[in-house]
């Protein structure tokens, strides 16, 4: 602290006619004050950086991470390669430390945000994109509430087999204290033959009370919803909006939401150049057609390009009055600090890849994931639930091995491998199944190591 040297502190107090800071707290009644001899039971301060560094490194060394180990965990937070350039850009002090300046003093940051929304919009085929929200789950929750406000209806259909983490967030966003204010969340079954949404069940549940159909593409269990257009059409026929949750890293090879008519697209920004950070890398986005009916329901900040008095391009917020900053409880949901730094990482990532990069990367992931699924399925006792039609994740069934998933995962961990997410604990009817994720970070040798280990472990 620059002013903590005793002489400096005393000089500041002297300007106030004081020789001690105590009187400055005179507003606070004495009996509100903490008055123990040792005020707080905290450990002694570690004031030297060399000691603090050793202390923190010692703690963090207890982690086992996904570079030293091979991880097949995905399901909402994914290990993708982050180009080193992206790390440098988000580490720049100018981007890392600030909060909010003027349109001129924040020009570069605001431009980077505009490049985030513009490029993400290009991937999605949508012309309106808000600044990011906390996560995919939060984006889905906000989008469902947007749909409820737009349609004036109070029910949403969601896939039965969506990420439990995401689903719990959506449930909170749909609940309400006041009677009659909640949005009812109804699940659509999975077609067990295809692993995709059961269109019959969808039709059965659609009706004039449904505000939106929310589905994911690829879905939680990895499958590509090849009937997306039919799902959207069914929603529209019922007067409901179609909201799709997408993994943007798939959009070099998969059709964008605009192609199959989705009204609102949401998803995660984490795959686009953000490290997992134990889940701290998450971010969510909301996008739609650029129409007032949608725009007027966005809870997010909307960064718009505009002009200065001299005609230079500059950026400023649109529809600020409808945000919670502008309208408090009358605003459209709420906003606050979000994941704006990651938006800069996303912008740089998309600019690095370009159309060719997204296409190559998507193809590589598809190929590596399918190769891995095939090899894993060759291990006796192990099968892959749906061996084709997925993007980067697929369901592995260990039911035939006669061993518990816990035991298998532990044996893999000993071998430096983190097995996929245990679905038995998360989704009914998925006992002995795990969700495996394979990306460009997995080399063929990594897959060989997994398969060899599985043969040993499940023998």
């Amino acid at each position, binding site marked *: 602290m620059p002013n903590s040297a005793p002489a400096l502190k005393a000089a500041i107090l002297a300007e106030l006619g004081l020789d001690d800071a105590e009187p400055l707290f005179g507003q606070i009644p004495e009996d509100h004050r903490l008055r123990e001899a040792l005020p*707080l039971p905290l*450990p002694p301060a570690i004031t030297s950086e060399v000691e603090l560094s050793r202390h*923190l490194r010692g703690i963090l060394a207890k982690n086992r991470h996904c570079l030293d180990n091979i991880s097949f965990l995905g399901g909402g*937070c994914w290990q993708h390669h982050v180009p080193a350039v992206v790390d440098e850009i988000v580490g720049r002090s100018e981007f890392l430390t*600030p*909060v909010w300046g003027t349109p001129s003093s924040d020009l570069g940051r605001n431009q*980077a945000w505009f490049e985030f929304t513009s490029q993400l919009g290009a991937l999605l085929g949508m012309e309106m994109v808000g600044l990011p929200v906390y*996560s995919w789950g939060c984006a889905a929750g906000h989008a469902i509430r947007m749909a409820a406000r737009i349609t004036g209806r109070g029910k949403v259909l969601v896939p039965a087999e969506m990420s439990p983490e995401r689903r719990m967030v959506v*449930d909170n966003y749909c*609940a309400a204290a006041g009677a009659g204010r909640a949005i009812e969340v109804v699940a659509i079954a999975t077609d067990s033959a295809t692993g995709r949404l059961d269109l019959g069940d969808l039709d059965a549940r659609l009706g004039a009370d449904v505000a939106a159909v929310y589905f994911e593409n690829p879905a939680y269990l990895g499958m590509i919803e090849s009937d997306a257009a039919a799902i959207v059409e069914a929603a529209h026929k019922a007067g409901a909006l179609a909201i799709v949750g997408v993994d943007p890293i798939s959009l070099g090879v998969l059709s964008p939401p605009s192609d199959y008519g989705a009204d609102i697209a949401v998803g995660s920004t984490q795959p686009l150049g953000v490290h997992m950070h134990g889940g701290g890398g998450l971010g969510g986005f909301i996008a739609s057609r650029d129409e007032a009916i949608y725009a007027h329901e966005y809870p997010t900040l909307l960064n718009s390009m505009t002009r200065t008095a001299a005609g230079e391009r500059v950026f400023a917020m649109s529809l600020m009055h409808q945000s919670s900053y502008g309208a408090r409880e009358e605003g459209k949901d709420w906003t606050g600090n979000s994941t704006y730094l990651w938006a800069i990482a996303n912008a740089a990532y998309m600019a690095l890849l370009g159309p060719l990069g997204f296409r190559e990367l998507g193809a590589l992931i598809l190929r590596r994931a399918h190769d891995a699924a095939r090899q894993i399925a060759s291990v006796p006792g192990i099968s892959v639930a749906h061996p084709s039609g997925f993007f980067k994740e697929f369901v592995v069934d260990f039911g035939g091995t006669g061993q518990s998933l816990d035991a298998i995962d532990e044996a893999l961990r000993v071998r430096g491998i983190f097995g996929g997410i245990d679905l038995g604990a998360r989704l009914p009817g998925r006992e002995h199944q795990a969700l495996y994720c394979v990306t460009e970070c997995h080399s063929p040798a990594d897959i060989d190591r997994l398969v060899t280990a599985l043969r040993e472990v499940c023998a």
Partner: protein
Amino acid sequence: WDEPLAMEMSVAGRRGQHYPIVDADDLVPAAMRRQAPPELPEISEPDVLRHYLRLSQQTMGMMGISLFGTCTMKYNPRLHEKLAAGPHVAEMHPEQHPDTMQGLLECVWRLEDALKALSGMARFSFQPAGGADAAYTQACITRAYHAAHGDADRRTQIVTSIQSHPCNPATAAAAGFDIVTLPLESNGYPSIQALRAALSDRTAALFINNPDDMGVYNPEIRDWVDAVHAAGGLCFYDHANFNGVMGKIRAADLGFDACMFMLHKTFGVPKGGGGPAVGAYGCTEKLAPFLPGPLVAKDGNGFAVEPGAASSIGRVREYWGNIHQVMKAYGWVAAMGAEGIAEASDISVALNNYMEKKLLAIRGVTRSHPDQPGWRLEMTRYSLGQLYEETGVGGGDVQNRMADFGIDAFWMAHEPWIFPHPFTPEAGEMWSREDIDYWIAVLAHVCDEAYRDPDMVKSAPHNQAVGKLAGDDLDDPAVWATTWAAWQRKHGG
């Protein structure tokens, strides 16, 4: 630099990342194969880097001086950044087996322990990804608490003050509550009579800041808590402005059921231009069963994951929250210790009052609530209303002009403005007195200039990369453009 948009830098055939080439068309169902490539720019790696480096240089950030009030602009220790960027933090998956994430769990546990000491609360969750999210968490927990007590349909009102941060009423409304807003008296806080009048068996909770961002402390707050409790409601302490009272008071000691700390403000975590952030949410044993999972418990061998109780509200966001920021905040607490934290409070309050003395000597500057005579805490709300009346120069003009001197925008005030042309600088403990003096001198210069040459101020900024906004109507659908595609369609590039 006169830097183009990335989208304008595209030259066909360029790219900044290569991947091994494989063919995978057969792996995508025909209906879902992308036909037209996305309209992304094609740029080489060096040019992408240089582009964003230039944009970084066009962002003033904390290169200048920023006293953005309520945000407590602090130094972000670079040791923490370096550690967080390393694979032991960055390359961790949130659903790893607890055996493989003992380090992160220990950070969570240690910070929770420290925040318990600072607040007197029983448990903390770091899942809320910002201060607003912590308020939202409180709203969800309030809902769950009353439901668990069979009171869900009746207790639908949240009481707050007009000076509370907008996120408090907004998140409560999003959770389905009705909002009761208390006005301020001339002493700077609402009367307890107004509170009592607002309370009833429909009261679910009180959401309140204290001090708020005018630096005024409500001395009757214990009575407030008692009154709300007597009415059957919960009390939530929004500690956004904790910097002035760290180590001086504890929310639980005052009777609150829950509180919130902003790690990206008070605890030295970087702001990133607005997150990733953490609104650390703490509560007493009474509310702990409703906390979102996962939580960390210490067991004999290390640290275990608790999934969240059966009565938990589930999740307000996926996974642990911004756990890398939790690590940094723990580092900050470890470096400061109890005495350092209390001293930081002393310094920030002293510097605020030092500023106040000097700022009130500037012609055109007044202070909110003159009836409130004492020393303010970590902030003071000022007004440029007099300046505006006498010169026509407003707060936004002054912000723009100060930027010409390397001073980044000050905080004005949250909606609604209860004083004209408000501004709210926060000195904090990490700016040197010289920087504070410089800030004061620039404001004095600009106010003086407003009297001498108001057009100079009104036409500011003069030495930034671009000038002031034209004032187009960005609420007009024909004008706004949140993407390049929309801009090209509406404005032709």
